[in-house]
């Protein structure tokens, strides 16, 4: 009886997801087109993928983008985790709220503003120091900067979940500050840290505006490259690339799902003995 019941909520969900995914699938569909435009599907072919792999410039950009995301997320996670720790241990409530608000403002302020401000900073620094060229380093620095608030936001709730008397207990058992951090605090925070890393990674991966501002001649990321190629008229090579990136994102999401499930299991089952 219940199964056949029509539900508005289901229809709603289906429509929303269609709206969100149809453009992507449409784009992916034409990646397999034998023709060279998106006007008409003339037959199945992997030719565009072939073109893509032959295009070394694009492959290098792809690699650069991933290296950038990997590094910026790593450094942002390090800085952000300790930032969350310090914010948590700020005693005065007012300064704590202030710090958190400052953190959140960075989260909501538009990328264009962040990008423009970094551009101004880097060019000023460049004229002052004289050796700061816009390129990989400047992009990396700005990506780290806009990822840190995300990591703080993911780690801080875990910190609040953590029982303070656990820290007392560890100290009571003889642990130094460093051992408390290494053996108690970081393991307890790890789900938040992992989530923060993945968020920072994806933010870096799909950032366009900030990168567009602060990159120079020698270095571009995928988002910027696709944008500039799309302005010249989209070649189906881009469709092929997007398909691959989408699949990669899918794998990442699945991977994250399994990692979070695993840590959840560890929490409740205790894992094995070392």
């Amino acid at each position: 009886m219940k199964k056949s019941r029509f539900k508005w909520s289901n229809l709603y969900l289906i429509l929303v997801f269609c709206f969100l995914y149809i453009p992507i699938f449409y784009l992916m569909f034409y990646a397999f087109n034998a023709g060279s435009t998106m006007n008409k599907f003339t037959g199945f072919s992997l030719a565009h993928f072939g073109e893509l792999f032959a295009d070394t410039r694009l492959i290098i950009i792809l690699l650069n983008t991933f290296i950038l995301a990997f590094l910026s997320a790593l450094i942002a996670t390090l800085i952000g985790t300790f930032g969350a720790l310090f914010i948590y241990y700020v005693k005065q409530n007012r300064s704590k709220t202030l710090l958190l608000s400052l953190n959140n403002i960075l989260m909501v302020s538009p990328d264009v503003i962040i990008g423009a401000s970094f551009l101004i900073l880097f060019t000023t620094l460049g004229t002052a120091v004289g050796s700061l060229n816009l390129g990989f380093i400047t992009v990396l620095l700005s990506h780290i900067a806009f990822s840190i608030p995300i990591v703080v936001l993911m780690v801080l709730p875990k910190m609040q979940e953590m029982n303070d008397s656990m820290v007392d207990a560890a100290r009571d058992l003889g642990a130094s500050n460093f051992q408390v951090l290494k053996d108690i605090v970081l393991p307890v925070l790890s789900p938040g840290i992992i989530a923060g890393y993945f968020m920072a990674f994806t933010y870096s991966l799909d950032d366009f505006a900030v990168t567009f501002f602060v990159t120079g001649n020698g270095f571009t990321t995928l988002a910027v490259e696709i944008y500039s190629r799309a302005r010249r008229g989209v070649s189906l090579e881009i469709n092929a690339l997007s398909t691959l990136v989408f699949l990669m994102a899918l794998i990442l999401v699945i991977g994250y799902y399994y990692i979070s499930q695993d840590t959840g299991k560890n929490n409740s089952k205790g894992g094995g003995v070392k």
Partner: protein
Amino acid sequence: MKQPIISFKHVVKCYDDDVPVLKDITFDIEEGKFYTLLGPSGCGKTTILRMIAGFSEPTKGDIFFEGQRINEVPANKRQVNTVFQDYALFPHMNVYDNIAFGLKIKKMPRDVIDQKVKEALKMVQLAGYEKRGINEMSGGQRQRVAIARAIVNEPKVLLLDEPLSALDHKLRLAMQYELRELQQRLGITFIFVTHDQEEALAMSDEIFVLDNGNIVQTGSPVDIYDEPINHYVADFIGESNIIEGIMLRDNLVKFAGKEFECVDEGIRENEPVEVVLRPEDLDLTDVDHGKLKVTVDTVLFRGVHYEIICHDEVQNEWMVHTTKKAEPGSLIGLYFDPEDIHVMRFNESEAEFDARLDSYEG
């Protein structure tokens, strides 16, 4: 007397606002005994424990451990371990790793750690639970893991911060026996913090009764129960009838409009006092044989005894615990021996109280 293992000398503790949580506390803890800090919440008992553990420092005064001043020694350098109220077990480690934590920090060899963890688990009756996760265990089991994690380090003093308060009644009683037995087997000093007077009476060698940042009375459970120093202690520990009276002379006290023989001495003649009579010391009898004539108001069945509330001719209320039954509204007699009466002076300090008791009890 041996050198005390822990001494507090005029310790004062204030938190951010300048209201002292502890007001000039001085006491000694001897080795190998079971101590209880007893008092209502907010009396400062947990603050004392945290200062012994090293989680907070006294604002004034000194703390000594085996004669050494330890005010500024951090928690991880002290030879005491704590069992926390919420256990504070590490959820990302199994039972073995939780218990081995302190030993691993001390860099003991693996086989020694294995051996000690096994012994500790056996001691708290959890042998074979090494690989369990913390979240798979019941409250009572977690409690035992927390105790094992502390005693495996062989501390000189074990601190227990209301460790039984989260357990149900039956389990709590069982754990009281186990803790007492464990303390006697290990021979180390236990300092137990609780607001539950039954726990304190059942387990301790020595009880410190605290009120509002002061130690009000120190003594064995029997001393404190039979000879409470003042109204507060008498009321807090056990049930009691506290009646105002006048000490006519040594061994004679007047209350409820009559004169009674008692065994208290050293109080000025005609001094106003308070008299304590424990409900279980009062016996029901007929009106002619009773020392007091009372009318029964209510009778409550409590399982092991009846709790009878009655009032005398001058409207003092009396609580009686007895196995005999009485009818509400009836007139009965209450009988008690001179030894059952305990007389308390107003505002007597503990030193004066002890000196007075020593003077006639010998």
